């Protein structure tokens, strides 16, 4: 009976299912159509280069009085003068007549206090510690310092002693054909008493500019290059201070700041008039780049009546890095390391005049220095329109009971993609295989270098120019307790980690010895077909193995003796870089940078084959494609065969735009566009770059090829050549 009722009920319920419920009508509010992206808004932003005003700068005669200074060395191009009391220097460029000074010229015109005036005339500033306390900085203008100057041909030796502070050191300035060379060998530093050297800053005011009184800019090696034009009221009110190789993970708990691309900076006083390029040849591991904006520490100039501060740019060399150590159950104690870093410091100052006195000239001068040192050699096969395809293989997602492995691209699927690409294009495709080791991308580690068989056979790819992506430095943990093996333990005896997105993704660094052994074994395993990431830009020491940053820098530069593809290599790897991958198209977007310039691209064009950041992850693809064309940069993509939403619950959820199928039409059009230009300029060097009008750029290559790019919303005609809006033109 019960059964019967049940079935009757079921039969009755069925018609209920059949009743049709219409979907509610969707609301149809009338929205006006959105206007197109106004590229004209962007071209005046710090993400583009501004047009030069052409304003010239003449040093006032009155400022060129050389009282207190003596000529200590000279050659055909320069004279080196020095003040024997405080070691201040002035370099006269005999070709342009311009005087570069480490002190402030006509200093009496400014409302400096006495102590401030001493700082402004000093050659160096020293910080030291005594009785476990870091003291106020002292500078060479103060009475306690005894500086003896000895010149011997082009070499001038400064011996520094101090009555109160028992730290002595000796540095030399060598006059060269291009400028001066500063050397401070570590064995010349002597701590005789109980004073401990913390840091030395040389020539704080060299290249400084009062407010906007000098037309020109500071060049910062941020991203591919940035300029800070001299202006009143810059956007920041504090000193920007940045280690060239980023924060040292060995000395930090959980912070991470950016890195600079090269150990250099530059200053221009009057564009195409005078410029200075500073390069740290040795000791960049100790160095911090500093920029002090003119919005700080303001003075009044009695002649002009202007109240402003000085734009200053200088390096600080940190020989000791004190830190606070928390002791369980007690408050923290302040630790000043016993030993200072035993590294030699060498800085070259190159002075440029006339047409070379701008960021382009600086890039070319830097290029020539690297060529002379054998770090760069001409590469006619560079910039030929190769395309870098970074392929995502697999990823692991934590599951209910077991982890779930997500195949994003198998070798077979990669071959399909390659077939499609090679059928369409004659370009050479460079593949880097990311996440093809066991268990996928986020399980990367220095010792995880076995090809994941579930994605296919590596042998399938023999016909491709492929490289295994390898980043031995970074590894990830889902929780703080499940950290990977051999992670860096910092001076606080804690694993250094960074919290990443999705709340529970922790990034760890690997200890240096394991990085080295892992890299060696991986290079061997894949016959050097490895694309190396992580080693080239961010450096950290390892106190457990007693390595300073400079030690690690030396170890890394010895580690690789073949040419391999590198992700964002700094200078120490340029000699071993076959492909420079992920070269930025912008600076790091710090607030005070006013212009974006392709310094890296100009310096390396014709010598290193470089590739852009991933275009499919770009938020302004049209603009970025034009940037690649303007910069002569090969294109790059990070792709997967499968749709990227499959990664949404994995640690790779930030790889949200990899799907090849969704992106390929865009890719094809972009590769097509770029190839036209790159074919015409392959292997060529950039010799000039001009902003014709805001948003319209002319790039001149050797051999008489010129590329015009128009980023504006309207067509532009120049010398009879019309460049369409958001387009380019090659003129041979």
């Amino acid at each position, binding site marked *: 009976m019960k059964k019967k009722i049940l079935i009757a009920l079921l039969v009755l319920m069925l018609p209920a299912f059949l009743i049709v419920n219409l979907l509610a009508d969707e609301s149809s509010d009338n929205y006006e159509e959105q206007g197109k992206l106004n590229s004209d808004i962007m071209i005046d932003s710090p993400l583009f280069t501004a047009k030069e005003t052409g304003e010239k700068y003449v040093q006032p005669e009155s400022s060129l009085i050389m009282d207190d200074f003596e000529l200590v060395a000279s050659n055909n191009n320069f004279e080196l003068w020095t003040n024997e009391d405080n070691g201040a220097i002035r370099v006269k460029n005999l070709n342009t007549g311009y005087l570069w000074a480490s002190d402030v010229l006509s200093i009496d015109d400014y409302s400096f206090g006495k102590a401030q005036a001493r700082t402004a005339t000093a050659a160096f500033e020293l910080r030291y510690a005594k009785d476990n306390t870091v003291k106020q900085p002292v500078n060479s203008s103060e009475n306690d310092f005894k500086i003896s100057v000895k010149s011997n041909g082009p070499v001038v030796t400064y011996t520094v002693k101090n009555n109160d502070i028992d730290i002595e050191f000796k540095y030399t300035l060598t006059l060269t054909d291009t400028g001066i060379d500063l050397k401070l060998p570590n064995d010349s530093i002597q701590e005789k008493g109980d004073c401990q050297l913390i840091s030395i800053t040389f020539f704080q005011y060299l290249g400084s500019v009062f407010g906007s009184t000098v037309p020109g800019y500071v060049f910062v090696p941020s991203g591919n290059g940035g300029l800070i034009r001299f202006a009143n009221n810059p956007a920041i009110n504090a000193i920007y201070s940045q280690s060239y190789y980023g924060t040292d993970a060995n000395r930090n708990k959980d912070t991470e700041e950016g890195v600079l691309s090269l150990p250099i900076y530059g200053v221009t006083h009057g564009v195409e008039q005078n410029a200075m390029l500073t390069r740290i040849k040795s000791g960049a591991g100790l160095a911090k780049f500093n920029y002090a904006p003119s919005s700080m520490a303001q003075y009044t100039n009695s002649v002009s009546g202007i109240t402003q501060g000085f734009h200053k740019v200088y390096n600080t060399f940190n020989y000791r890095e004190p830190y606070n150590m928390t002791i369980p159950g007690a408050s923290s104690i302040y630790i000043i390391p016993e030993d200072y870093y035993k590294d030699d410091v060498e800085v070259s100052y190159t002075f440029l005049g006339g047409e070379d006195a701008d960021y382009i000239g600086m890039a070319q001068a830097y290029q020539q220095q690297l060529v002379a040192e054998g770090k760069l050699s001409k590469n006619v096969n560079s910039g030929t329109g190769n395309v870098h395809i970074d392929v995502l293989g697999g990823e692991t997602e934590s599951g209910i009971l077991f982890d779930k492995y997500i195949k994003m691209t198998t070798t077979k699927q990669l071959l399909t993609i390659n077939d499609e690409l090679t059928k369409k294009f004659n370009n050479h495709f460079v593949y880097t295989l990311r996440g093809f080791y066991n268990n996928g991308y986020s399980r990367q580690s220095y010792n995880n270098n076995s090809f994941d068989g579930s994605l296919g056979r590596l042998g399938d790819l023999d016909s491709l120019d492929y490289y295994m992506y390898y980043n031995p430095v970074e590894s990830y943990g889902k929780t703080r307790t499940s950290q990977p093996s051999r992670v860096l333990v910092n001076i606080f005896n804690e694993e250094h980690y960074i919290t990443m997105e999705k709340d529970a993704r922790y990034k760890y660094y690997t200890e240096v010895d394991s990085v080295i052994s892992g890299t060696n074994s991986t290079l061997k395993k894949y016959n050097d077909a490895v694309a190396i990431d992580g080693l080239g830009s961010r450096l950290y020491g390892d106190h457990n193995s007693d390595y300073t940053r400079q030690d690690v820098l030396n170890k890394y530069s010895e580690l690789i003796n073949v040419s391999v593809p590198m992700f964002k290599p700094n200078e120490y790897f340029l000699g071993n870089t076959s492909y420079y991958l992920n070269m930025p198209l912008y600076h790091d*977007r710090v607030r005070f940078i006013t212009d974006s310039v392709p310094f890296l691209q100009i310096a390396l064009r014709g010598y290193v084959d470089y590739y852009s950041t991933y275009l499919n992850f770009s*938020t302004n693809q049209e603009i970025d494609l034009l940037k690649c064309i303007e910069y002569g940069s090969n294109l790059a993509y990070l792709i997967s065969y499968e749709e990227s939403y499959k990664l949404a619950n994995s640690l790779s959820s930030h*790889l949200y735009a990899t799907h090849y199928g969704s992106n390929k039409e865009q890719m094809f059009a972009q590769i097509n566009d770029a190839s036209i230009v790159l074919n015409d300029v392959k292997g060529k060097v950039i010799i000039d770059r001009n902003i014709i009008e805001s948003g319209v750029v002319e790039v001149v290559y050797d051999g008489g090829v010129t590329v015009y790019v128009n980023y504006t919303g309207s067509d532009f005609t120049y010398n009879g050549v019309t460049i369409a809006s958001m387009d380019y033109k090659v003129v041979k």
Partner: protein
Amino acid sequence: MWKRISLLLAIVVMALACFSLPTDAGNEITNEPYETRIVGLEGNLVASSMAYEGINVLNLGFNDPEDIFIDNDDIVYIADKGNKVVYRYNPNTSEVVEIGKGTLASPTGVCVDGNGHIYVADSENKKVFIFDEQFRLTRAIGRPMEPLFGETSLYTPTKVSVDRAGNMYITSTGNANGVIQINNDGTFVGYFGRNTTTVTFDLLFKRLFASEEDREILYSLAPKATTNVAIDNKNIVYTIVDGVSSGSLKKFNINGTNLVGTDLMYSDGFKDLAVDNEGYIYTVSDDSTGVVTVRDKDANILFTFGNTTTGSMSMGHFDEACGIDVDSEGNIWVLDGTGKNLQVFTRTKFATTVMEAMNLYNAGEYELAEKAYHNIIAQNSSFVQAYIGLGNIAQRNQDYELARDYFKIANHKTGYSDAFWEIRDNWLGDNLVWIAIVLVVLVAFTLFDLKKKIYAKVGFNPEPIKEKIRSNSYYKEFAYLPRMLTKPNDTLYDIKFLQKIRFSTGLIFFALFVIVNILCDTVVTAYIFRTQLDSQVNIVFELLKWGLIIILIVIGNFLVSSLQKGEGFFRDIFIGTMVAFAPILLFKLPLSIVTNILTFNEAYIFDLVNILLWAWSIFNVILVFKSVHNYTVKELIVNIVLTLVAVIILVFLFLMVYILFMQFWQFIVGLIKEAMLR
């Protein structure tokens, strides 16, 4: 009950897991200086490429800038409290005019009407000053004299906004009545958009121990004063409230009714808001991530970007953002009070694509919208709105299977249910004949007892097999489960006095209970009826949830009743409790299976049956306690209350032991590490 307890457990587990605050780093792939997030497939915020790119940083020598307003001609006004002035900045000429110098004491809010008149809220002078287009002071609006305003109501103007008719909307610190509305000739019209308070347990608890002063200021039961107000070009008024997490953003129609929900993802640190000509809402907060948020007209989040970082010099990082406005080109101007600068952001191509798609869809241009949605997905495959849009379009095109797939990706259950409804409807239509045939056969089988006839025909006698099964000891014990449904008292008598069910069988019931519940909640129940997403399921937590709760109740009751002259032994309580859950054990699985052919239209069936099953089970448990211990009703009530108390005490005890153990463990680990590293 279950939900509450599981919630409690979840909170405890989460509290244990949260021992470090994230210091988010940017995205290594895109190299962008600040984070941009969008609403992802699980309704949470996920990474995205930049929606807005920083294009300018302005520093006019600000001291303590508090508010920004951009008029119809894109002229920018900044109220600077520190410099006691309002700056008028023309972006085209870079010309700067200082307004109200000498008059203003503490300008904290600024606004300009269609005639170019400038309204400045001055919190120290307690007035709203009005300047004409020549920047001359024309009027000052002081405290309203009307009795309606309230004798004790505070008037400390902090922000001001003006509608097309010239009505002023003034926010005042400490005035909980709402926004003060004053018309063009200075008459007080009334209060607008009063906020409500939600009295939480937490709040009451804090009030209990707070000082008199704190009780009034920090833990007041009065509603919060509105923080800021904005009016769009259709005269719609928007308000925000700082320091509340629910309903902190409101959009009012002319009647003062809030048009947006209160449960959307809101910040509790709102400082300012702006609305553009198309109705997109822009807010700024001092949250550590997501300082600037862009929302559609229904206040759904589209993008959120920017970080609060003290002393950072990167674009998109703020010391303490406090003001926001949008110019006619859609550029966002964000004022950083402590950082003393003004950062300007412009829409990237990606953001333009998103807004275009939304506008196209709303305008009914489905084909174009579809293309735009695909574009969005190519650039960010986690953009949930794009999948929902595509799902809706597929639904419109009657491609229901495609729609269902898109809704599945988007975790959009209503959409999925609607699409599934259509699919089911089509299937039923296509197979009506077969369904009818199957039904007829089934009905015939039962009505005419065809089974027996067939058995007889083939000469099959099922009786011996049935007999064998019936004599199986486990079968006998399992048979008590259905018996519990019809004859609970007899069943409990058998359990208590005849001990018909072995303890081991009780354990099997227990295991079954845990397995059935977990299986149903995670796998068997249809996708749309599941309460948690696959990725959120934690098997350990599930085991604890279902297993521990039974154990706690049984132990708790045993402890209490042994003090309370209960007759039941532990085994009786345990087996009784397990049998009490017979409705769940018997019907939950079939119910879960049935959900697979249900849509939200029939959700009431599922909900009703589910509630019935649990209510029945709980009733049974109470019955078990009563009859096992042989209690009177009064005793029973005391017993139940005490059991609950015991359960809570047990949980606390467990937690204490756990925390102590963890601390001890960490101490040991630390000790070993210290020894190894030193």
